[in-house]
């Protein structure tokens, strides 16, 4: 173990700085942290060991012995992930050490968007931004915009306070694949504007409408833990599940029954199943329950959704519908969930409400706690409550921003603060994001990387990497108890960066007046302490005699939760058993009176004759929505269904390929009314013949050395169709046509199975 430390040659020219911390070399310490690679909010343990890093101190290059993060694992005490961590979470280490991470504040030197920057000092950078903000505050405070990925925990509170006291509109939280439709549906059906927590460990049967719950949807680690228990955790009792989707996801690949269904008609299928159940005389149900008010015709037994009629619309056979209904009601404890593509249609809310209604129907017949529940909110004093208007749609927000800039509306944004959101890459072309960003007079970015959006910035104030930051997160799903994750920095900052919340606090204090008054904390950790200390009053994982002990224990444990931390899995089971407060039993009145939902045909962009294929962009198992494409571990992780690495690809049914004379690995062009992309073809038996699918994630032009100029971005050809009620982007509602471009050689498809690019791999499965 001594050897690695000494690989620098003895005559190394760099000086050595005195270390700030005393570490025993070769001995690992495990420090808690939180995962920020997706929204699930898993707890981490970071393996920290002493190592030698090249750093810059006071403008001087040198070496210093410091604690370095070596590995990320799940925090066994954290109620969401119980010591487990997915591939993406583990790759978070590479965010910290990424060679393209920004190391100093940058000031633009070239033309806007040219990517030419020069390093400046923090004083200079903050001075410049402060001048901009001060000027704006006196002239047009409403013209300040803040655009970020959905912020976690107190960060959101901090930013909201800053903006509010500044006089600016609320922050725009943007993520390309948001869950606004499901949140809205859950609010209507169950009274919770959240995604559900699944207790799969108790499940005997699960019917999933498109929810990739083992891969990218909701809280995958928590759900995978439950899945293992559902399959083999109870001797003699193996839970089964059926997946309804027209392109087989990683979850669908594990299903006992995989049923393709015409895109956008999942709600019809759910009601078809409900119809069968409602006709079942032996099955006791309440005809005037919540579903009855939400779904037209429910009280009458859904006469428009007989299996035969549903078969015509969905393509799922009446026999299969009857079987699903039977399995759902006769397999013990069952549940129905929806997620992903079915929500991304113009009638997404209807689909969600229909599935939720089916879930309520199945659940109401039992007197056991439901498998679906909603993680209770943590009683923070100043919690930034979810907006009363219901869930905000990312697309509507970003579109409004863009339109107001481009049309020159009153209070059009003049200064944009950007924090890791990348709409230039991920918003559909119709939003004209690049134009809009270019037209905003001043853009400052907090991102750690230059991406397609922050390349337009005038000023970059690089944030710490998550492992260098104070983190807090309140997972909205994945645990049945209240969970508030918190972690101090696991390692010292490697580069000349500053934490975004501290920069905001600093800016606020310097702006003075009401802004300074609204931000009474010197640093972000002070703010966190103020928010967390009141939790000591509530029974939970930490037993402390005073605030100091509580605060230090919160940091040691990686957060606070309302069940004792000691018995993770057992605790979850116990909490489940005790949680009679299953979701539907505690409904809040849905906001406003609302007509019962009727089925409306999903709208698609493009005429079926010209654009014969449905187009499905889907979140990549490795790269998520593209924000993780810069991490080499994830780029080189073979996609589990196609085995592709470092590539993008188009999934086609072999029949389709044969008809269009497309060979495996050949370059294919996909054209919608809004543009076209090229990618190599992968033939997959797990996709409907009228559908082509493409993973999101590649196609970056400006995102570090590992992601730039690789593959194609399917989001770039999406139509700006939205879900009718929530305004969410209907990202599965674009139709496309397909053409063979040919040439295996130019396709750059790298498949693990098959060994080499361009080699059409035949497979004969044998062991």
């Amino acid at each position: 173990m001594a050897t690695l430390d000494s690989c620098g040659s003895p005559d190394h020219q760099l000086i050595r700085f005195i270390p700030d911390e005393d570490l025993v070399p070769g001995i690992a310490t495990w420090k808690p942290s939180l995962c920020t690679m997706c929204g699930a909010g898993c707890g981490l343990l970071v393996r920290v060991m002493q190592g030698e890093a090249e750093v810059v101190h006071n403008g001087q290059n040198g070496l210093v012995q410091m604690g370095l993060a070596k590995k990320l694992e799940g925090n066994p005490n954290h109620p969401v992930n119980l010591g487990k961590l997915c591939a993406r979470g583990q790759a978070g280490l590479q965010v910290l050490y990424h060679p393209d991470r920004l190391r100093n504040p940058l000031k633009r030197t070239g033309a806007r968007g040219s990517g030419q920057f020069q390093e400046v000092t923090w004083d200079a950078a903050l001075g410049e931004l402060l001048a901009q903000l001060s000027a704006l505050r006196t002239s047009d405070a409403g013209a300040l915009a803040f655009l970020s990925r959905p912020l976690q925990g107190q960060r959101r509170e901090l930013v909201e306070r800053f903006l509010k006291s500044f006089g600016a509109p609320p922050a725009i939280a943007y993520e390309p694949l948001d869950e606004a439709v499901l949140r809205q549906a859950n609010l209507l059906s169950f009274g919770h504007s959240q995604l559900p927590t699944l207790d799969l460990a108790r499940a005997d049967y699960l019917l999933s409408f498109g929810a990739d719950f083992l891969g990218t949807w909701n809280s995958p680690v928590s759900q995978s833990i439950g899945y293992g228990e559902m399959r083999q955790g109870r001797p003699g009792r193996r839970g089964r599940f059926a997946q309804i989707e027209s392109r087989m996801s990683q979850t669908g690949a594990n299903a006992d029954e995989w049923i393709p269904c015409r895109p956008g008609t999942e709600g019809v299928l759910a009601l078809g199943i409900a119809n069968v159940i409602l006709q079942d005389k032996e099955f006791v149900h309440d005809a005037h329950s919540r579903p009855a008010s939400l779904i037209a015709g429910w009280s009458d037994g859904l006469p428009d959704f007989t299996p035969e009629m549903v078969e015509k619309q969905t393509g799922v056979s009446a026999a299969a519908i009857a079987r699903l209904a039977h399995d759902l009601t006769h397999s013990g404890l069952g549940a129905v969930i929806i997620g992903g593509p079915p929500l991304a249609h113009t009638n997404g809310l209807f689909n969600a409400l229909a599935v939720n209604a089916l879930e309520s129907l199945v659940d109401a017949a039992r007197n056991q706690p439901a498998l679906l529940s909603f993680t209770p909110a943590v009683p923070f004093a100043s919690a930034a409550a979810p907006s009363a208007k219901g869930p905000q749609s990312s697309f509507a927000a970003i579109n409004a921003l863009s339109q107001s800039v481009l049309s020159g509306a009153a209070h059009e944004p003049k200064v944009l603060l950007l924090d890791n959101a990348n709409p230039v890459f991920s918003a559909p072309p119709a939003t004209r994001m690049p134009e809009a960003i270019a037209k905003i007079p001043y853009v400052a970015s907090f991102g750690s990387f230059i991406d397609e959006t922050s390349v337009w910035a005038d000023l970059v104030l690089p944030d710490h990497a998550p492992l260098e930051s104070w983190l807090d997160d309140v997972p909205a799903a994945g645990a049945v108890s209240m969970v508030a994750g918190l972690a101090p920095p696991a390692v010292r900052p490697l580069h000349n960066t500053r934490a975004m919340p501290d920069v905001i606090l600093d800016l606020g204090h310097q702006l003075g007046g009401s802004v300074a008054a609204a931000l009474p904390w010197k640093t972000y950790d002070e703010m966190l302490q103020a928010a967390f200390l009141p939790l000591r009053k509530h029974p939970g994982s930490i037993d402390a005699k005073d605030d100091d002990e509580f605060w230090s224990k919160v940091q040691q444990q990686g957060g606070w939760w309302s069940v004792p931390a000691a018995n993770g899995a057992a605790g979850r089971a116990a909490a489940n058993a005790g949680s009679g407060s299953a979701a539907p039993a505690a409904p809040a009145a849905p906001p406003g009176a609302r007509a019962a939902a009727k089925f409306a045909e999903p709208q698609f962009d493009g005429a079926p004759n010209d654009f014969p294929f449905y187009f499905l962009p889907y979140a990549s198992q490795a790269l998520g929505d593209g924000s993780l494409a810069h991490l080499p571990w994830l780029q080189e992780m073979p996609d589990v269904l196609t085995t592709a690495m470092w590539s993008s690809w188009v999934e086609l049914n072999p029949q389709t390929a044969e008809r269009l004379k497309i060979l495996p690995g050949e370059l294919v062009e996909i054209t919608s009314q809004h543009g076209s992309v090229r990618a190599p073809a992968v033939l997959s038996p797990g996709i409907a013949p009228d559908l082509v699918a493409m993973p999101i994630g590649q196609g970056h032009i400006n995102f570090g050395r590992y992601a730039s100029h690789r593959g194609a971005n399917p989001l770039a050809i999406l139509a700006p169709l939205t879900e009718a009620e929530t305004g969410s982007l209907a990202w599965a509602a674009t139709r496309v046509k397909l053409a063979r471009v040919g040439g295996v050689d130019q396709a750059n498809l790298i498949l693990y199975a098959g060994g080499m690019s361009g080699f059409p791999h035949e497979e004969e499965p044998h062991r």
Partner: protein
Amino acid sequence: MRALNDRGKWLVIAVLGVGLFIFAAKTVPFGHAQTQVTTPSPSQAPGRVGATQTGDSDVFTTDHHSAIAAMRDFLGLRSQPVQPIAFPHKTHLANNLKCLDCHAGADVGPDAAIPSVKFCMTCHLVIATDKPEIKKVAAFQARHEDIPWVRVYNYSQYAHVRFNHAPHIRANVACATCHGDLTKQTTAQRVVNLDMGYCLTCHEQRQAPIDCQTCHF
């Protein structure tokens, strides 16, 4: 047998020629980085614009620094370390300090650890402050620099040895067994040749495991 001698000469010339070629290949900068790393050129990767250039190379590999280094490593040649400060082990040991007082990691973990200048100064703030070497130590701290000690004992990276001090200390192996009698040395010198034969002999005597993977992994 002069003819054979002739041949011998040619053989030597041929071997030297190949050697020279390899040397040239090692020193001419058509570096390794090109062979494996695929990066867009800097102009295509604006993300790199702000990156601080630190160190002499952008990549870390297991390469030798030069052909000569490779040859020396292959032949097991090492130069004696030259320390920035003439640290007298014997004086410290004579003053009843124990090895573990300063090399504190040795009994708990793999690495014995060389203390940082802060640790030195805990004593030398008051002791022997007038000595020239101590003044050097103080000067390092005043500059916020650590003392660039040169490692005396370490394994070649290519030996793939994962040595752990702690089990050896628990097995009552005296420090002097492997590091020589430091009561007689000023700066530590490499007085024991810690090659694999040395390790194995001791392991056999003490019936410690001699399975390869005990140390090599």
